[in-house]
């Protein structure tokens, strides 16, 4: 028997929904002093936003960065998507049913949907898109950075083949089948409660096969066509990308007649241009260099909004060798660090203190676990128990990426505080290597402590537990190869349960969190947050439209009354 998951039932699928409450489109809480929004719905007008970086791509096979999500979310549609109100998965381009064993997903595309060039959206386009993003050469230079997200689909190992060309006769994911002109059936190798979340990622957007197959990924990105609410009007790479409404979009028409996304605008310029009314938003997290201006100005404070974010900053321990193969030494570090001071200096106190891997917005977060208190005395005592007596702690090397001043600042504080309890810390600055830097240096294994951070890929605890702490992520995203048998068996069990058993899953993750805390899997520092400045002429007053737990601003739902 199959069950249609829609509306309230879909709440079970996604994590943060439980915390946010599934009742009535709850929004993340704002700590601002009741900022103003425009309540008058108006059609027409332009919204301008700016980024300090480049929009790297519009190709799902190349996508990795948050900046590119801004246009991609508007141009494309996914089979499923997030509710604009919270982190609940809702039908996107398709409605869906899931088999009871959690292995078979049937998607029925809503009829009459068209790409911005007028081509109809078909089941074959969906199949093509999923085959493309999981292929060994999806990015044009290798596999897609997010191709791994679909590794649970039947046939993935053969088709992706670890980045090598597949064997003859294998032409796509055998687990993705076109079962009707508008119907796609996906079969998984094992139940995966987070699977729908992966389909909502920018890597799983639906491409127009007729267009995408004409280009290589490196040239397609300049001809991107999707079935979302907006289409690309122009893109002068490195300067600005302009979106206008997609005339063929079958959903509700956007209020805005244009969205301008400016690239490479430094923070100092963003704040000046925002004050002049030339920018409609300053996107977060607001850089510390301009946050001071927000604090200093009553006007800006009224336009400031903050929400929590599913991300964490921590220090990974190299547990493959002494001294951090000893839990007492790992605990000593956790007690020796003044996390409140680090958060104050590095985030202006905006980052909440951490005591476990999962952030508070994530299901499975164990609210009974408190961050380790700051206690140099306790740290010294633990070091003594570990055999480092009379304040003669071990000499360790800490690596950190020096591409942002906040990382260097954190490393300096960590060095001071660990030195104070007897460690001798050598700091080694690293450059930001690729998207995840400590990995490369793990091979040489000459480090003990590594500054690391993680943002959710999707709001499911599996994203943290599996990627950061499982043995399967050894030598990769499990920085320092921490492991614990009990933890591993708990998360293995939880990761392989269908979404229908979410409440049991969350309980398993909560138990696992206790183990990670007690065994000091990391030195926990602080959680991420997200904040933004939004002009008062922007509406409606729905904070999640601008600061969503997963997505970027929903430009298709907002309006402007700027004269």
């Amino acid at each position, binding site marked *: 028997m199959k069950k249609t998951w829609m509306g309230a039932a879909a709440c079970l699928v996604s994590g943060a929904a439980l915390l946010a409450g599934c009742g009535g489109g709850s929004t993340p809480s704002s700590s601002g002093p009741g900022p103003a929004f425009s309540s008058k719905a108006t059609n027409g007008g332009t919204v301008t936003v700016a980024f300090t970086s480049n929009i790297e791509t519009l190709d799902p096979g190349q996508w990795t960065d948050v900046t590119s999500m801004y246009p991609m979310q508007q141009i494309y549609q996914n089979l499923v998507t997030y509710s604009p109100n919270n982190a609940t998965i809702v039908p996107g381009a398709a409605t869906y049913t899931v088999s009871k064993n959690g292995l078979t997903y049937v998607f029925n595309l809503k009829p009459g949907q068209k790409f911005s060039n007028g081509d109809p959206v078909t089941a074959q386009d969906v199949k093509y898109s999923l085959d493309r993003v999981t292929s060994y050469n999806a990015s044009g230079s290798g596999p897609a950075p997010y191709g791994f997200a679909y590794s649970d689909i039947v046939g993935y190992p053969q088709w992706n083949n670890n980045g090598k060309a597949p064997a003859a006769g294998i032409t796509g994911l055998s687990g993705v089948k076109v079962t009707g002109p508008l119907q796609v059936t996906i079969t998984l190798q094992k139940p995966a409660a987070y699977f729908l979340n992966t389909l909502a990622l920018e890597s799983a957007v639906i491409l127009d096969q007729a267009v995408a197959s004409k280009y290589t990924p490196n040239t397609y990105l300049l001809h991107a066509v999707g079935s979302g609410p907006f289409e690309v009007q122009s893109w002068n790479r490195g300067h600005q990308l302009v979106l206008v409404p997609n005339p063929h979009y079958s959903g509700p028409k956007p209020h805005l007649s244009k969205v301008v996304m400016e690239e490479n605008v430094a923070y*100092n310029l963003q704040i000046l241009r925002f004050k002049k009314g030339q920018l409609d938003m300053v996107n977060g997290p607001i850089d510390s260099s301009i946050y001071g201006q927000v604090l200093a100005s009553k006007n800006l404070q009224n336009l400031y909004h903050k929400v929590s974010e599913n991300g964490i900053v921590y220090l990974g321990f190299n547990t493959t060798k002494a001294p951090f193969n000893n839990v007492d030494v790992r605990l000593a570090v956790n007690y020796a660090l003044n996390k409140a001071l680090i958060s104050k200096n590095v985030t202006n106190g905006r980052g909440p203190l951490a005591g476990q891997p999962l952030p508070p917005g994530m299901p499975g977060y164990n609210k009974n676990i408190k961050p380790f208190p700051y206690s140099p005395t306790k740290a010294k005592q633990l070091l003594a128990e570990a055999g480092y007596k009379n304040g003669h702690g071990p000499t360790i090397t800490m690596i950190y990426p020096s591409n942002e001043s906040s990382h260097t600042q954190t490393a300096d504080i960590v060095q001071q505080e660990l030195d104070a309890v007897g460690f001798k810390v050598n700091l080694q600055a690293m450059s930001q290597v690729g998207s995840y830097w400590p990995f490369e240096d793990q091979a040489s294994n000459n480090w003990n402590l590594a500054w690391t951070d993680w943002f959710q890929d999707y709001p499911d605890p599996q994203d943290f537990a599996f990627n950061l702490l499982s043995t399967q992520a050894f030598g990769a995203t499990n920085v320092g190869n921490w492991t614990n048998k009990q933890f591993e068996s708990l998360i293995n069990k939880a990761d392989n349960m269908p979404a229908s058993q979410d409440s049991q899953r969350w309980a398993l993750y909560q138990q696992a969190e206790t183990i990670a805390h007690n065994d000091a899997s990391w030195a926990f520092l602080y959680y991420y947050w997200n904040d933004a400045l939004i002009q008062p002429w922007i509406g409606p007053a729905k904070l999640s439209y601008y600061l969503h737990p997963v997505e970027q601003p929903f430009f298709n739902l907002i309006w402007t009354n700027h004269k």
Partner: protein
Amino acid sequence: MGRYIIRRSLWALVTIFIIIVVTYLIAYAVPSNPARIIAGSHATPSTIHEIDRALGLYKPIYVRLYDYLSQLLLHGNMGFDYIMHQPVSKMVLAAAPYTLYLAIASVCAELIIAVPVGIISAIKQYSFLDNSLRVLTIIGVSMPTYWTGSLMLLIFGFLIPLFPLGGVSLAGVVLPALSVGITGSAYYTRLLRSSMLEVMRMDYVRTARAKGLSPGRVLFRHVVRNALVPVVTYMGLDLGNLMGGLVITETIFSWTGLGLLLNHALGNVDGALIMGITLFSASAIVIMNVLVDIVYAFLDPRISYS
């Protein structure tokens, strides 16, 4: 003269070659793995090895250097940027005109400030005015560009909105050029001042005065014209330097030239792009040096290359 030009150009090529080799070694000594950039944080070690194999990243560095050089020299291929997904040469050539525009505007700004100040300082040597102007130029040269730049934006972009708040445009060049000009004019001022003082002591100036020419005519026809020779030659070197050295100015003003591109490339440890920009900038400096040497001979007939 012909032989000199050929010899000078050959040495310039040798210099550029050495720069390529040294930059290549430095860029690749920094731990950065293009395979990781391509495949992302989640990729398994076996996938990374596969990309390494496909791109030849496992080869010894001298083989890779040889590959790079042969691609560069035979095909003009500067490599591929895996972050922006386009050829490095395309990115460098797209950004270079903006930097050239800003560099020329900056040299103009430097001269607009430096020429009058230098002339006044020289003809009023050791006066209160001369001393004050010299102090001012020292202050100018001591102010970091990120500070003057931010100040310019605040005053002339925000408080008195005469110019746009950053970005590439015709009028948008004024503020970044001025902030480079304020810092860079100090050297021109000193150069012009000392050159003027030297020229003013020349016999032909005394002769001109003795012939009864008006002081203004002596100053502009005989002194300034001759004193400008070192300034003009320095302009060439300056222009070359600015082509490679506007990282901070371009970043503050969101001026999407080579400097801003380099800033991103360094932040991402994007080896191929760092190489490409360095190569381009270094070549600009070396070529301008050669041109200056050659032009110098035409400007100053006393100099002859043989």
